[in-house]
């Protein structure tokens, strides 16, 4: 299944990408998607904190990802 992956903050610099489209296995969870993304982008693998949003909101790492979903990966936020 095809999923849109977006990177923000420092992760955009570390991956050199704002977004990419990846084929993920059916039934893939948010946690599994995060592992795949870490393998794909080694600079992310050493990051202690990788936050993930599924379709624009914080969810559970066990949530299932579906075809056409948007996953965003980013470091702890620093607004305000």
């Amino acid at each position, binding site marked *: 299944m095809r999923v849109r992956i*977006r990177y*923000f*903050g*420092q992760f*955009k*610099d570390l991956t050199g990408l704002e977004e990419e489209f990846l084929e993920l296995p059916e039934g893939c969870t948010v946690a599994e998607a995060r592992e795949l993304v870490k393998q794909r982008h080694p600079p992310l693998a050493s990051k202690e*904190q990788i*936050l993930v*949003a599924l379709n*624009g*909101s*914080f969810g559970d790492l066990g949530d299932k990802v579906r075809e056409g979903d948007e996953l*965003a990966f*980013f*470091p*702890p*936020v*620093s*607004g*305000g």
Partner: protein
Amino acid sequence: MIRVQKEDFDIGELLSAVKSPRVGGVSCFLGCVRDSSQGRRVERMSIEVYEEMAAAELEKIRDEALERFQVEEAVVVHRYGDLEVGDNIVFIAVGAAHREEAFQACRYILEELKRRVPIWKKEVSPDGEHWVEGVRPG
């Protein structure tokens, strides 16, 4: 009212937006760009945002504050893009019947924003650019 925007904001207009006959006190917070950070001189700042999510998350935080502290109205505006020292970054205003709830709600919105809203600051110093380390969500 929630806004995530590049442009500066009019503080007077935002303060007026939280006033009503039921409001006896308005509390507000203004965040702006400081000229130093962790011992480094800061020349300017670049703010990045996951715009769709930031607006939605701010709406949630605002609603939580209204509910939890029983305040009348709250506005939050956060800027993104390239900012200079002294520029406004964020403004929060809360109108409530009494001061205590207004202060508490304003503080709540700010702290939750810093914890949950997908916005990142990058400071530009004489020795290069530095992403600001975020607060870990707890």
